[in-house]
């Protein structure tokens, strides 16, 4: 803290020198964004009947679940008194945007994701419970919740129900991430956050990051399994990524243009911050490398006739850049919103520790954890047909 104090530029209210929200709070909107985005991609197939993305449907659902399970952990780790967090369920303060997190989270986890995955996998769970032995058999039996009717009529009902749940799920995914945006957008004391565009910007950036993640996962998993990539599927995902990205970037541009043109009392201070403390993370990483470059690459695939190999390379590059860009966006919102003084007269610094409770190390662990959970989920509930391993070059039906 002493070193931060020495790095303060201009004047800050004394209590503002310490940053309140760390890299863990950067992870929170990043992770929930991936959940919402992955789910919306999955729903394309179920609700909007986009058959081409079917090979990624189950993978997207499991990815969403793996990340959703991790989503509350950075928050929990950040609290001064994590043992009191249950109070948010027991005695929620109804006027607080944050108090609703637990309920939105539970709704999304239990009513939407878990239920949809269960319905989609129910037949396989029952079959696996019948064919496996020992502890695994017990596990599948528990997962089947004692329902072992897999008659054609019963499966038909499952399918109908799953569709209804997806239809509920799409607005729920919107709610989950729009809500995360509202937590920031509704803080009137902070002009960097306070904009009604915040929820919708968060939503579209969530879709962008979630689609990019599933696209990358699909490419990596296909290469590991040596099944070959269904290019029709990959092209379709990339197209949706491109569309979502254009909307996301337009919204962010709208916010920017509005701020520049209105130039209210906070503008000079924020403008200075973007050109100095946030220059690398905002201008270089988020806008140039993380937005313009992947948008340009995706645009190229839409207008030029590229070979399959070239398209794969472009999609892979664009996907990685997109993920980096969206992470930078979360960083710039959360950290950037605390670097300037609410007196608009000065700036502080964020010092990222390594092996502390809110340091880089726990952040890295929290980003690896969803992939570990996903690996377990994929073992337990394989998202692909059992007989397509290593045989087909295209998995699209």
């Amino acid at each position, binding site marked *: 803290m002493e070193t931060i104090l020495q790095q303060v530029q201009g004047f800050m209210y004394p209590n503002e020198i*310490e940053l309140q*929200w760390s890299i863990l709070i950067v992870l929170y909107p990043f992770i929930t964004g991936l959940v919402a985005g992955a789910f919306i991609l999955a729903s394309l197939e179920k609700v909007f009947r986009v058959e081409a993305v079917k090979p990624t449907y189950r993978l997207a659902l499991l990815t969403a679940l793996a990340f959703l399970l991790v989503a509350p952990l950075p928050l929990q780790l950040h609290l*001064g*008194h994590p043992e009191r967090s249950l109070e948010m369920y027991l005695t929620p303060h109804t006027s607080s945007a944050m108090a609703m997190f637990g309920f939105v989270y539970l709704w999304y986890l239990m009513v939407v994701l878990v239920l949809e995955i269960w319905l989609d996998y129910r037949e396989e769970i029952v079959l696996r419970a019948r064919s496996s032995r020992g502890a695994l058999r017990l596990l599948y039996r528990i997962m089947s919740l004692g329902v072992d009717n897999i008659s054609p009529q019963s499966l038909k009902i499952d399918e109908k129900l799953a569709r209804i749940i997806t239809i509920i799920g799409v607005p729920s995914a919107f709610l989950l991430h729009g809500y995360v945006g509202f937590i920031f957008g509704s*803080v*009137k004391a902070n002009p960097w956050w306070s904009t009604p565009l915040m929820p919708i910007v968060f939503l579209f950036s969530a879709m962008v990051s979630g689609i990019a993640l599933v696209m990358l996962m699909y490419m990596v998993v296909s290469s590991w399994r040596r099944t070959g990539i269904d290019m029709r599927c990959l092209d379709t995902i990339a197209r949706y990524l491109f569309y979502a990205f254009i909307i996301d970037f337009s919204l962010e541009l709208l916010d920017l243009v509005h701020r520049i043109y209105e130039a209210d009392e906070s503008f000079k201070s924020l403008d200075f911050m973007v050109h100095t403390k946030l220059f690398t993370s905002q201008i270089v990483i988020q806008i140039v490398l993380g937005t313009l470059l992947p948008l340009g690459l995706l645009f190229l695939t839409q207008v030029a006739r590229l070979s399959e190999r070239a398209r794969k390379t472009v999609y892979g590059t664009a996907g990685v850049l997109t993920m980096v860009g969206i992470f930078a966006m979360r960083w710039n919102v959360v950290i950037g919103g605390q670097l300037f003084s609410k007196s*608009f007269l000065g700036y502080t610094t964020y010092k990222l520790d390594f092996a502390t409770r809110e340091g880089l190390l726990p952040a890295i662990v929290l980003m690896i954890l969803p992939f570990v959970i996903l690996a377990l989920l994929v073992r337990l509930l394989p998202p692909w047909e059992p007989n397509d391993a290593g045989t087909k070059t295209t998995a699209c039906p």
Partner: protein
Amino acid sequence: MPTTRRELLQKGSALLLLTGAAAAALEEVLAGTPEKAEGYRLQEHWWAMTIDIGACIGCGNCVRACKTENDVPREPYYFRTWVERYRVPEGDLEHPLVDSPNGGYDGFPELSQPDKGAKSFFVPKLCNHCAHSPCVQVCPVGATFESPDGVVLVDTTYCLGCRYCVQACPYGCRFIDPRSHTVNKCTLCYHRITRGLTTACCETCPTGARRLGDLKSPTDPIHEFLRTHTVHVLKPQMATGSKVYYAALDGSVR
């Protein structure tokens, strides 16, 4: 079916046990309410503060008294109250030069090169005890609240330490106490004012620049002060219902 004696005893003892638990719970609730001082009635007060900019000499007595009285951590980034020094170049309200070394705890060093044509003054700051507090609005569990006598307080046994309220305060009045990991802020010396005393900062102010006032008491001098001075609150555009009234506040102050 008639109740047997055994059932009656069971039900009766359960009821008794419950009543006892409820009584204990009620006692807990009452102990947590602010109305603890004998003879103090919450409904009869509505606390506010007036600060006369022209009278503040930047001595830092208030900052020191507050830290001592309320056991505020001594580090230079934890304050319940602090004093800012403003220097405003002639006519340039948008670019004041502001400093607050150690929150004004040690007073202010003399300026080596006083600005020509600039005006200079001190601005003591503290929680504005807003009637529509943004910090209270955002607390996810209601650990921070506006008491019926107009003071924004924190139940530290309930605070999660999520820091949302620190973000929501437009004035920078809150901090996380590194010892308790809960939020800390000005209580308007609640333990003193409910016993008929004034706050530590007002008590030690040598020029009477800071004065505690009770807007519900018809004889309180605050009424005359507000009538006879041009007063402002900080950041009125935030519409927080601030109850710290500044006399002779310059337009450059934020």
